[in-house]
């Protein structure tokens, strides 16, 4: 079942491979246009560069291009590929499931539609398509029901949907209806799948979709600013042993230098209610 190409039987509904290909191209265009509009209309790119210029004035040293390259690589391996920016390990895991699942899902969809438009037997890509959808579903539903901060920390009920949920809901709808359609193959499920896909990719301008483009850029910028001494005005992140000669540190001078105190407020998950 999960090794069968679900797009192969579309002719039954009178949908030609050309139509599907056109749909995929349309979706790609929707994302490009939505993102471009988002950036241009909100001038977020301008803010991004002006902020960097302003912070550069506070820099205490100049970064070499080798350093910048190394930071770029670190950003890619750490924030982009393993979502290290998430403080909460559960959120990080859920995000990785969603992200890699989504990449597999989109990639395999494109391959199946363009390379195997009428071939039911494309086990490798069909498997990836299903796997991707399942990964998105696992990470997505976990996030949706218990990890969303408005649910976890604000105590909101999961059904209390707002504009911020447009992306996750359309994403979940896409993979859920996609899987159900692949399983049961009814035209209604296929229609729902197509509609939710269209909403997911067509709503970039209004949803949180565009964040996937600015997040890596922001992470890279943060690395640079922390390294060039401007630190976004943050103080150095000292270890206790480094500051024992400060006059106010009398009280901890006698405590072993490698003593760790454990956690207090930060020990618990942020849901005290």
């Amino acid at each position, binding site marked *: 079942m999960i090794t069968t190409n679900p797009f192969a039987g579309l002719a039954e509904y009178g949908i030609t491979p050309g139509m599907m290909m056109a749909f995929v191209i349309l979706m790609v265009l929707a994302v490009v246009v939505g993102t471009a509009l988002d950036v241009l209309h909100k001038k977020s790119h301008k803010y991004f560069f002006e902020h960097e210029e302003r912070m550069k004035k506070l820099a205490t040293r100049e970064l070499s291009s080798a350093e910048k390259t190394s930071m770029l690589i670190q950003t890619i391996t750490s924030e982009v590929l393993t979502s290290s920016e998430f403080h909460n390990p559960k959120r990080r895991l859920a995000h990785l499931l969603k992200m890699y699942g989504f990449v597999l899902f989109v990639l395999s969809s494109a391959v199946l539609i363009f390379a195997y438009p009428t071939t039911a037997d494309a086990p490798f890509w069909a498997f990836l398509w299903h796997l991707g959808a399942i990964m998105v579903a696992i990470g997505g539903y976990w996030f949706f029901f218990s990890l969303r901060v408005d649910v976890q920390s*604000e*105590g909101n009920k999961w059904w209390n949907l707002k504009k911020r949920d447009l992306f996750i809901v359309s994403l979940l709808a896409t993979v859920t209806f996609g899987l159900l359609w692949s399983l049961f193959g009814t035209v209604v499920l296929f229609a729902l799948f197509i509609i939710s896909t269209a909403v997911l990719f067509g709503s970039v301008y209004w949803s949180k979709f565009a964040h996937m483009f600015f997040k890596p850029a922001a992470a890279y910028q943060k690395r640079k600013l922390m390294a060039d001494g401007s630190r976004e005005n943050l103080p150095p992140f000292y270890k206790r042993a480094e500051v024992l000669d400060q*006059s*106010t540190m*009398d*009280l*901890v001078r006698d405590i072993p230098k490698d003593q760790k105190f454990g956690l*207090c*407020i930060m020990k618990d998950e942020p849901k*005290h*209610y």
Partner: protein
Amino acid sequence: MAYKTIVVDNIDILVVGAGLSGTGAAWEARYWGQDKKIVIAEKANIYRSGAVAMGLYAINCYMGTRFGENNPEDHVRYARNDLMGMVREDLLFDMARHVDSAVHQFEEWGLPLMRDPETGKYQREGKWQIMIHGESYKPIVAMAAIKSADKVYNRICVTHLLMDEAKENRVAGAVGFNVRTGDFYVFKSKTVIVAAGGASMIYKPRSTGEGAGRVWYAPWSSGSAYGLLIQAGAKMTQMENRIVLARFKDGYGPVGAYFLHLKTYTQNAYGEEYESHWYDELKKMVGEYIDHHPVPTCLRNHALIREVLAGRGPIHMVTMHSFQDPHLEEVGWHNFLGMTVGQAVLWAANDVDPKCENPELTTSEPYVMGSHATGCGAWVSGPEDVSPPEYFWGYNRMTTVHGLFGAGDAAGGTPHAFSSGSFTEGRLAAKAACQYIDDGKAEGIVVSERQIEELREKIYKPLENYKIWRNEIVAGTVSPTVLLPKQGLIRMQKIMDEYCGGVSMQYMTNERLLNIGLMKLQLLKEDMEMLAAADLHELLRCWELHHRVLTSEAVMHHTLFRKETRWPGYYYRGDHLYLDDENWHVLTVSRRDPKTGEYTMEKAPLYHIVGDVEEEYEKKKKAKKKAS
């Protein structure tokens, strides 16, 4: 509305509010009631709630008997003097004799207390204050309370106390709602210790935009200590004794360490010492109280206020000398970062370097509370071995409602308790509450479903009001029918400011103004039936407003009752502009009838601790009289 009703039953000790006094209560209760059910209901998150959420750079109440520094009675005399005589000395003595044991435990738990490198004693800031690195003061005491309590219910806004229906005037628990989930919480308890906060924001603030949040006392101190007790019909005392603070302008950063430890001092715009300009005037108003040492806080305020009105403002804190010493400069900055970060932000924004200029001081809008240099709060019983009969009815820190205890801001007549003293009062109340239960005083409490249902309906009414009357208008905040909590707050602040001696009246009021004010407050209370809340956050603000308005009303009645000006510099009764020891050397006590809302006022006798010091003083006074 689909909010659940959650009943927490069989509680022995319910602590309402977990600031310093609430954490002290919960902590201690476990020792005297090892098998008792101890529950905390806290409006925010216990790790950062109450007035110490931001941290403190000093513990302002520490005797140091261990180092031979002060005795408890010395502190009583100090607080008595500062409050122009109007304190409950039994309660003060009791707090002072226990307070050091709390501080010694804080040190053991990990609170960084500074020590004088030469003497090994705690580093004194002044006679009563010791210096600490108290950024995590609150998380540390919170951990103690969490360890002792059976359960801490965070984010519960307690709105009302439950009353026993079997026995008149006995408490039965409390109700409130969860600010996150919205669920209705019913706490059925044998005793309740009200350890909630005093009242900020009941007077119009000097800063009215964003800066309204930079109040001297925490904005979340919503007068619930008073609102809850007054609603339950507990007697209150000294509610007229609101406090005005002389602080750094706009940021209201602390001045204690600056005066005491950094040895800074004040001067007027022309570099003159100015307090002596007002000596004669004060001598006429308050007589020999002006000759006391140290000069009572309110009288020093008076000099500052009058000097500015005389056109010789602003008043400056002279920091330029002390701050040349890099160590003292560092202490000065840590002092702000440890307890009033906003003052550091303000100076950073304005490029103020106290090494190079002398920052401005000002007097704040008034605040109503009971643990700083003022003693508003409930009329509570003192300890058996100290209190005279008028001050004692069985259980230490119990209000006039059976089973209902008060500590910290909630206990009246005990100023200068500060953080450590409030924690200690919580401990005292907790022990007494355990005793009360063990004596069988809490048997047979009855709470009907009807009482609970009525309260439930009342609590959620603002949400209902909003939903229904939202349909009347297109958009915006202007409605002919309902009142938003912010609108009600500002209306109350204006009434208090203009009729009850706020900052724009230079703290002046009189009988006529107060009567008009009470009438206007009555209209506000009627309109508050139509308070509207769009969400749970606003519902929280609605109930905070209720507590603030109940506090305001008590302040008005008390101010009206005391026909003298006892604390020039805190407020002035223009129709009685002098201190009157002959008629008013008494404590004021009020009770609001919960059924009718009517106030009754009475005078309670003032007892003083008398020892060698006082007898010596009396002798001198008599000799002086004879000589003249």
